[in-house]
């Protein structure tokens, strides 16, 4: 009796120790991602920081690395992001409102939902081919900002729809019902109650989707964003370049100077992205706390 108890205790100790060791392995695997992220950032910053000064932002691209800058790429990216948001946010929010607040449960709704989930998994380069055939050639928009923005809009539409749907689902149904009880119509309920309540959630999703759009490269190459644009676009129909395109072009060159320029441009892009992501995360946390407190 005594000895079998002893064996059990001994084995239990061993099992626990094994579990601890393997949990340590899990921990190491988990921080691997964070370590890579830090490595990437340190690598980019140490390579690019010396090239990054005020004039880097205000100079046009050049064949001479000493004189090259990202003015047209940065302005192009901001144009793209603005146009893309202008197109995709109303479309995406309207789609989500329809799916959550209007559509009746049935095969059609399920079909649209499955379709959106699948669209979210279509490779971005395929969206580029759609944009090339549909907007650049068929609609005749050429290699314009508009063609690029429309392509990116379709690309991020599923993300906006899905996050807006989640935000709408988080609104308690009692809120809708109390408004209906006062005689409000469906649209009045949505406009004055549901959408304002869901706004922070929708906004968070929009920021995350925009940060996806601003980093996309492949679709823009397909729709013909050019690498060498020594002028600023003045309208949606102008030719353009964008930060990711400029980074790609500089990285693909064999000379070290251009790779350093790429690193400097990456720093600018990452600052933009981190600002957007951080504001989305903070916004979400702020409203989660506020809602939990209420």
């Amino acid at each position: 009796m005594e000895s079998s108890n002893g064996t059990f205790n001994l084995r239990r100790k061993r099992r626990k120790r094994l579990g601890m060791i393997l949990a340590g392995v899990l921990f190491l695997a988990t921080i691997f991602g964070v370590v890579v992220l830090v490595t990437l950032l340190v690598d980019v910053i140490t390579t690019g920081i010396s090239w990054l000064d005020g004039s880097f932002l205000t100079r046009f691209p050049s064949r001479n690395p000493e004189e090259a800058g990202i003015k047209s790429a940065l302005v192009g990216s901001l144009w793209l992001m603005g146009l893309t948001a202008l197109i995709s946010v109303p479309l995406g929010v309207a789609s989500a409102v329809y799916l959550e607040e209007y559509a009746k449960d049935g095969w059609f709704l399920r079909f649209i939902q499955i379709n959106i989930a699948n669209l979210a998994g279509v490779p971005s380069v395929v969206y580029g081919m759609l944009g090339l055939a549909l907007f650049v050639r068929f609609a005749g928009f050429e290699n314009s900002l508009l063609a690029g923005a429309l392509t990116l809009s379709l690309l991020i539409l599923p993300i906006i729809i899905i996050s807006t749907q989640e935000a709408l689902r988080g609104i308690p149904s009692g809120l809708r019902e109390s408004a209906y009880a006062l005689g409000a119509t469906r649209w009045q309920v949505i406009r004055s109650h549901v959408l304002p309540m869901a706004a922070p959630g929708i906004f968070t999703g929009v920021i995350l989707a925009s940060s996806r759009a601003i980093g996309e490269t492949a679709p823009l190459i397909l729709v013909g964003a050019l690498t060498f644009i020594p002028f600023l676009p003045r309208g949606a129909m102008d030719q353009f370049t964008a930060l990711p395109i400029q980074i790609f072009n500089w990285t693909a060159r064999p000379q070290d100077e251009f790779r350093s320029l790429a690193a400097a441009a990456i720093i600018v892009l990452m600052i933009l992205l981190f600002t957007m992501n951080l504001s989305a995360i903070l916004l979400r946390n702020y409203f989660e706390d506020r809602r939990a407190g209420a």
Partner: protein
Amino acid sequence: MSTEPSPTLDAPADDRPQDDLTQQVYNSPKERAIKYLLGACALVSVLTTIGIAAVLVIESIPFFQNVALAEFFGDTRWTPQFANKHFGIWALLSGTVLVTVISAVVALPIGLASAIFISEYAVPWMRQILKPGLELLAGVPTVVYGYFALTFVTPLLQTFIPGLGVYNALSGGIVVGIMIIPMVASLSEDALQAVPDSLGQAAYALGATKFETVVRVDVPAAFSGIMASFILAVSRAIGETMIVTLAAGATPRMTLNPAESIQTMTAFIVQVSKGDTPQGTIVYQSIFAVGLVLFLITLVMNIIANRITLHYQERY
């Protein structure tokens, strides 16, 4: 899906008088117009799918008029730029498969381990660092990963593997793997969170240790969700473009040697479209045929993964 206000408001019975005020307001032309307008917006996503399929099929018809399906699927050489042109998709497909397998070897174990740790072990303050950390990793643009692969990972690998070329499948594959870790981690974590606590508690009651419970009860219970996350992540790896364009090379060939320069389907599409290939040439048309193959593969994988996800969501 929709929250019905009440049966009487939503669907007025036929015997209600037509001058009923409630019905008039509720079914007013304005209300109906808004409903159809919103519905039209929802249709855009369906039209996008139809558009993608139509464009890829229509644009690749001229290609298949010149290249027989038997050659496309039978040849192992892809040499559109040579005088003696060959269009055998296997040369590009094998490049894609090679990169995808390498990325899966990196991402699936690390992603699953991260999911298990975050879901079962991490104390709240660790979660608060790790989850946003992974989200930031997921937010890094692929072109930045491509830069990282070419200028950091490849030189690092060259110190271990003498003679490794500047462009190789290994570096690209590893970095694609790093890119999809957050996806595996977050979707697998959702699956693990969906497992009821009672299962784990039953295991503890039988004397299992924490690790035994996690590995032999929680993970198997979340198995289908974890599989779905694997499939979605692999599908993402197949469609990844910029990393492989920058780091894996531009030499389509059938090889399983990760140290060699290869070309993926996506990298070929980019190579042609950024060059000066004139419209209407067979090389230009070929990108749509390659795009069609890429689209079909990823579509099938996404459909399978989404089906699995729906299935396991219904189970608990």
